[in-house]
């Protein structure tokens, strides 16, 4: 650590005004403040206190919390590949994980390269500090797309999202919509066949660098997500083994969303460190469960309420997407409303819209839109209450 600090101090003058590497000043600053808490303090004479936990540290916690889901997602990709190839008995756990790692790594690289590239360019162009928000977004994006998504599509969607959903609003902290979800929405509406088409997108069918198996024939490749099956006509209900597998995470789905156990580990870390709001997380699950129960009780859907919570992107969205502090409601009361409505909308879309077997993405984006309104109502209510008290 000390050596790194000394090295950074040594090369720092090159990046200052007039130094020969000044063009990369924002890059250097971004790396330096990521590695070390900046030494800036409040202005002399002011009463502000700097918390050492700045947003770069918060985002590091988010990334650590995402790791269980990511690592398990990699294993699941190998598992689905071996299952489709019919070689499950001879595949090793490590071999399957290695295959998944090789399949996901390019997506992580592309997502970070495109997103951070745009962020660095904008920061340098506007003479601002690098904004750290993309560090979490960049790892979230590969986790919410199918494993077979072509890299160029991912690059287009990331660029679209970072420029149009984030930078034009003023960058990190100013965006209305969650940039990772906008990336997924962009992919979803632009290239629907690559996101859900014919259910052949969930299994990686080519061996990579000798790992994994070549899957022969499209029939072997087609694996519907449980929600995709449920959206088909004549669906009567899930086999209990599907739900068990969904809790472990051994079902087809986007890279990071399948395993409830891995997501729960991340959720515990986020709640323990206080990075994510338990109010939002809880109320999303309550809203989803209540709506799911209602849909099942009224005979609109054969999916039980608890099945809604463990299938698809519901848990992942509730833990990592809905709790994004920038796009969620910020008033304490508003968080309950915001979360309840996300759960409600997600199940509503799943059950009542035949075009969308999964509704979490749309529900969260929709409520992102309403979060400022919810906050406004709560703030206004407080103002009115205090005004009344003052008049008495």
């Amino acid at each position, binding site marked *: 650590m000390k050596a790194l600090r000394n090295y950074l101090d040594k090369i720092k003058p090159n990046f200052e005004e007039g130094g020969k590497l000044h063009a990369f000043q924002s890059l250097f600053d971004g790396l330096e403040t990521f590695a070390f808490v900046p030494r800036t303090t409040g202005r002399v004479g002011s009463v502000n206190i700097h918390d050492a936990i700045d947003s770069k540290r918060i985002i590091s916690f988010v990334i650590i919390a995402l790791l269980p889901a990511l690592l398990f997602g990699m294993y699941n990709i190998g598992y689905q590949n071996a299952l489709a190839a019919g070689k499950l008995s001879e595949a090793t756990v490590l071999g399957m994980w290695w295959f998944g790692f090789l399949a996901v790594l390019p997506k992580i690289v592309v997502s970070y390269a495109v997103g951070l590239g745009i962020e660095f360019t904008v920061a340098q162009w506007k003479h601002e500090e690098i904004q750290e928000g993309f560090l979490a977004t960049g790892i979230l994006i590969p986790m919410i797309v199918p494993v077979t998504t*072509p890299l*160029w*599509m991912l690059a*287009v969607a990331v660029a679209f999202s970072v420029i*149009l959903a984030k930078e*034009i609003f003023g960058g990190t902290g100013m965006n209305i919509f969650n940039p990772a979800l906008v990336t997924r929405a*962009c992919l979803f*509406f*632009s*290239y*629907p*066949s*690559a996101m859900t088409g014919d259910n052949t997108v969930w299994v990686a069918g080519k061996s990579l660098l000798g790992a994994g198996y070549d899957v022969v024939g499209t029939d072997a490749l087609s694996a519907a997500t449980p929600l995709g099956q449920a959206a088909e006509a004549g669906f009567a209900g899930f086999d209990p083994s599907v739900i068990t597998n969904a809790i472990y995470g051994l079902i087809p789905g986007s890279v990071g969303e399948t395993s409830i156990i891995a997501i729960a580990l991340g959720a515990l870390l986020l709640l323990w460190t206080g990075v994510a709001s338990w109010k939002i997380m809880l109320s999303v699950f309550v809203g989803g469960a209540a709506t799911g129960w209602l849909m099942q009780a009224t005979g609109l859907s054969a999916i039980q309420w608890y099945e809604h919570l463990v299938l698809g992107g519901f848990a992942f969205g509730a833990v990592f997407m809905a709790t994004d502090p920038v796009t969620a409601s910020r008033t304490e009361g508003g968080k309950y409303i915001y979360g309840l409505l996300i759960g409600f909308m997600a199940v509503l879309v799943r059950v009542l819209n035949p075009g969308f077997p999964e509704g979490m993405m749309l529900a969260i984006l929709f409520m992102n839109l309403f979060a400022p309104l919810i906050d406004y109502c709560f703030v206004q209510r407080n103002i009115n209450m205090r005004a009344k008290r003052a008049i008495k």
Partner: protein
Amino acid sequence: MSKLFSSENKEVFLNPLNKNNPIAVQVLGICSALAVTSQLEPAIVMGLSVTVITAFSNVIISLLRNTIPNRIRIIVQLVVVAALVTIVSQVLKAYSYDVSVQLSVYVGLIITNCILMGRLEAFAMQNGPWESFLDGVGNGLGYALILVIVGFVRELLGFGTLLGYSVVPQWLYDHGYQNNGMMTMPAMSLIIVGCVIWAHRSINKEEK
């Protein structure tokens, strides 16, 4: 002759093409810009129709401007515009039926286009016929310009064609390229118009 093309008249014609563009600066006529721009051909036809109607309604109102009683001027303007819209709509039906089907109600809805009434009220009621004609053509073309840009981008990326001819080479599709489905949705034209306005404002920064 020199008076016809004086510098003021040139300004009247060129201003709406760039510095005072009806869509990019005044943000008028947005609805039709969103509705008809999923392909280039209807966008061009729509732009030309609006140009013709704006130009001639400007001329007619400008000729009548001293005889129209002030209280009923809106009705008179509407009658003139409605007559011209009907003529254009019939001509489209006669000579390019396919495009007129694609444009459907939006030809008829030119009558509600804010650019038209705006030019009639703001310009034709105070100026002579020749200036009004230039103003009408300029505004119509300024509107058409944005429509063509949006239609170009949307058809190229959404369908891989331009004016119906495929321009994206087959080998790109063979290598996994796909048309962008979102470009064919109306929401995307709003985003593209936004990008055009963004570019326009950054180019004309010193105007502020």
